[in-house]
């Protein structure tokens, strides 16, 4: 090795069976059903059992053992949610400056392909996810709504940035103050514009929601219901009417956290 070069040692080891201790008894040791076969003989035996199963020759104890080794049991909804969450097709649809950040999501640097959503579709008929990347003007709102209606079920929407979530800095006559005034939104991503990492975080929240396990809001997550400013002794004491309203609101959020689909991120 030349002087001044970083040293690099490559060691080749056999992975299979390498971890078995020296004094272990030969033959079948207690192993998890889906482990790699330890020896070529064991692998061959598994192959033969699988072939027998396909022919219908496997019976009784042999069959039970094969099923135990080769089958994972799950609910159909969970498998479906897992498949859906990891193959989301977003729509190629940029509204304003946030679109630049959304575009960089598919570049190698941020690479949303890691989460299976790199396939930006050019048609709403083929897309599952609408990312509202920018402010929605009142002239654009019917167009966005129409595109959302053209998407096939199941479909999701992310409001990216302050503008599409609340109107943002555009508190004026031309911009809709929040996209959920005219269409349902699953995840709101804050920021102006949000960095691609923030959008990836929002997308991961959406994935958990698709799998039927949505993140609760922060007051539920930190067990902080009842810590609103007025409850901590804020500037003004709420009237009885407002107190009832808060109680109703807290019940609403508590319900929302338990049932999937009604709670945003």
């Amino acid at each position, binding site marked *: 090795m030349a002087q001044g070069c970083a040293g690099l040692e490559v060691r080749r080891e056999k992975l299979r069976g390498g971890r078995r201790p020296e004094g272990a008894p030969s033959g079948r040791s207690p192993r998890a059903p889906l482990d790699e076969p330890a020896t070529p003989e064991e692998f061959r035996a598994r192959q033969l059992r699988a072939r027998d199963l396909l022919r219908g020759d496997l019976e009784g104890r042999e069959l039970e053992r094969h099923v135990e080794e080769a089958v994972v049991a799950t609910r159909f909804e969970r498998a479906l949610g897992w498949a859906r969450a990891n193959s989301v097709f977003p729509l190629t649809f940029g509204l304003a400056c946030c679109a630049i950040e959304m575009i960089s999501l598919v570049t190698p640097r941020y690479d949303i392909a890691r989460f299976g959503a790199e396939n930006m579709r050019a048609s709403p008929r083929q897309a599952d996810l609408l990312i509202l990347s920018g402010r929605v003007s009142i002239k654009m709102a019917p167009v966005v709504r129409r595109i959302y209606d053209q998407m096939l079920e199941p479909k999701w929407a992310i409001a990216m940035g302050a503008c599409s979530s609340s109107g943002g800095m555009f508190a004026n*006559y031309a911009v809709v103050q929040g996209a959920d005034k005219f269409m349902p939104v699953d995840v709101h991503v804050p920021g102006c514009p949000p960095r691609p990492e923030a959008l990836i975080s929002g997308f991961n929240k959406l994935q958990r929601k698709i799998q039927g396990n949505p993140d609760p809001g922060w007051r539920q997550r930190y067990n902080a219901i009842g810590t609103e400013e007025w409850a901590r002794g804020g500037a003004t004491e709420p009237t009885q*009417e407002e107190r009832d309203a808060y109680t109703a609101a807290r019940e609403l959020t508590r319900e929302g956290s338990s049932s999937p689909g009604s709670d945003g991120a």
Partner: protein
Amino acid sequence: MPDAPGLELIAQELNATIDGAVLDTYFEHEQAALVVSPDRILDTLRWLRDTPGQEYHFLSSLHAADYLPGEPRFGVHYELLCMPRVERLRVKAALPDPGGEELPELDSCVKLFPTAEFQEREAYDLFGIAFRGHPDLRRILMPEDYVGWPQRRDFPMGGEPVLYTHNEVEMPRWWE
């Protein structure tokens, strides 16, 4: 850019040709501006475009302004450009507010400068200035069914109050 004496010369020639055309001249920040009577705006623009020695062939911008509470309230500005000499000249027409639902009116210059078609539509859309003789005077930026002239100064800002935790108390039942 015509300098200050050059601007006065243009104003004198204009007044000699078209009676009562130029009301005032401004020369500020190296920019020349003519204030023109709204009745004579078409004649003035045609004279500036066609007279040898002027040749302002290019209308680089047409826009409107609202000077509320000033009088007259509205202004329509024409930015003219002479391509051979690279000289710019601003022509302003001041329009009083007719009041009520009526719109201030001005002659359309689409026949002289075809580029004015969309820009006059924009001035109509945002300020509600009706251009007489425009071939297709409709809204261009706002939706067709929009009501009001949003860039006027007396038009409400729009938007919504923002909900923070500190003013949550002031908006009971905000989630409805």
